[in-house]
């Protein structure tokens, strides 16, 4: 009786030991597989964000000693008119992306299915802008918008209108750059919509046709509702992408004239690497991070609720 008990106990111990050993091996395996990615990610993403947060509480020129000033940078930031201008401009980029790029992308995608000749060539060309590097796009359009020799003003002259200064005029600079942003990114949304449209069953249109629906009715009652998930995901990409905008603005105007095209990104860059206000720049950078974080969480929550309600 007792011996049986002892053997059983030692057997349980053995099983537990084996399970522990197996568990240890599993932990080691998982660690080895994820370690390279995790190390790179911690060093170049997680640690820098925490450092940015800590720098934002100091007054610092990047080389000499830091002085702790608490929330001073943030207080200054909230009274900084240029910061509010840049925040507004970022909002404009978001609005243009959602309300111009996405509809245009959808129109371009619809055109790809249009029963007209040469559409294969059209579709190849439509995608081209998205392939060009942002720096090259910026420089190309800087010259196209040139006040004197730019092709756009040449055309305006040719049609008998006055020259427009475009990028050097506070009133037109933002619109000009936003046009370029639309030019660059609409093809991306075109592809997203095209993929979604390919997925819509032909039989839906056929039965609608039998019921006597015209093209508009088919679009508004079949295509558009079925594209809703793509519209939502495109909007998410557009919003998150717009908050990160930098390259094209930096290249085309550097945020000028007189901060008319300043973004949080360009303002942060100037404060950090031209004025060497590293502490202040860190505060801007951390605000950018917070905005992106809040927007992402909001989108997730809204998306989750929408799905719970059974919508798409």
């Amino acid at each position: 009786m007792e011996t049986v008990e002892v053997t059983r106990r030692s057997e349980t111990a053995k099983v537990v030991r084996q399970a522990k050993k197996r568990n240890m091996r599993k932990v080691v395996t998982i660690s080895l597989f994820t370690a390279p990615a995790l190390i790179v990610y911690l060093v170049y993403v997680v640690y820098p964000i925490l450092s940015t947060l800590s720098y934002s509480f100091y007054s610092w020129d990047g080389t000499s000693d830091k002085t702790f000033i608490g929330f001073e940078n943030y207080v200054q930031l909230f009274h900084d008119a240029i910061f509010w201008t840049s925040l507004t401009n970022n909002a404009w980029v978001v609005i243009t992306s959602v309300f111009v790029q996405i509809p245009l992308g959808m129109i371009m995608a619809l055109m790809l299915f249009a029963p007209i000749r040469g559409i294969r060539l059209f579709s190849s060309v439509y995608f081209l802008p998205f392939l060009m590097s942002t720096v090259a796009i910026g420089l190309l359009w800087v010259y196209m918008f040139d006040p004197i020799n730019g092709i756009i003003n040449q055309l305006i002259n040719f049609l008998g209108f006055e020259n427009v200064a475009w990028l050097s005029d506070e009133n037109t600079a933002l619109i000009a750059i936003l046009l370029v942003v639309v030019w660059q990114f609409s093809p991306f949304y075109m592809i997203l919509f095209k993929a979604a449209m390919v997925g819509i069953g032909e039989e839906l249109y056929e039965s609608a046709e039998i019921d006597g629906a015209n093209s508009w009715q088919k679009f508004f009652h079949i295509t558009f509702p079925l594209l809703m998930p793509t519209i939502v995901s495109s909007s998410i990409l557009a919003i998150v992408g717009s908050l990160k905008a930098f390259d094209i603005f930096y290249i085309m105007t550097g945020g000028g004239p007189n901060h008319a095209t300043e973004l949080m990104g360009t303002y942060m860059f100037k404060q950090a690497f031209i004025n060497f206000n590293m502490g202040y720049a860190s505060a801007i950078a951390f605000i950018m991070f917070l905005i992106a974080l809040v927007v992402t969480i909001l989108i997730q929550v809204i998306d989750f609720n929408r799905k719970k309600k059974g919508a798409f």
Partner: protein
Amino acid sequence: MVQSLRKMPLYVIGLVLLVFTGYPFVYMISTSLKDQSTFFERPFAIFTSIEWGNYADVFQMGLTRYFINSILVSVAAVVAVMLIAALASYPLSRMNFRFNRGLFLLFISGMMLPIHATLIPIFKLSQNMGLYDSLLALLGPYIAFSLPISIFILTQFMQEIPKSLEEAAKIDGCSHFGIFWRIILPMLTPALMTVFIYNFIHLWNEFIFALVLVSSPENMTLPLGLQDFYGEFSVNVPGLMAALTLASLPMLVVYLFSQEKVVKGLTGGAVKG
């Protein structure tokens, strides 16, 4: 006749979009083939004069160096990313463990991250490591910021590989690494292709890290070099257009030869199937 009249609006929209998307390219290439005086006198002329001199100038200004730098750093970073991301995606998509979900979210949340939030610390880090103003300084951030989308694409793909395959291998005494290397990795090829194209194009065009971490011309990548050209060439518009054309050429050529792969790669993960 009636049929083709009804299609007129479609042709008009199609052509307007064609001019909108295509004309800037025509302008860039045709201007790059003009000499200075033709550029000023006949701005609208397309391909009436073919002048290769601007391209020779651009090569003399050292564009080749920027090309080589861009290729080196993009290829090195992308190859590293493919390996590191594939390794990490294996347990994330095929093993149950406690922090699986948290770790996955930590990685993919990097997709929404504004680079600016890491810029100053990475700049200081590169100085402290003695890497500032070298291509090596770019490698770390390039790999790190390519990881989120790569892990996202690869985990999605790996989840769909049937479990039975590796269970058979496990019975045969294959280790996890053996399963990964011999079974999973060969099946990943299409996903790795997407990862390669997406990241290569993004890194080829990357600007802000290069702007902050590199300062001397011999270490500049193509986007940074182009911006540098802008300063020197500001009065020689055809010369700058030649540089822009050359810089855009590799992507355009690759696109011409494998449209579908490039489109799928560039929209990485956003388009399913």
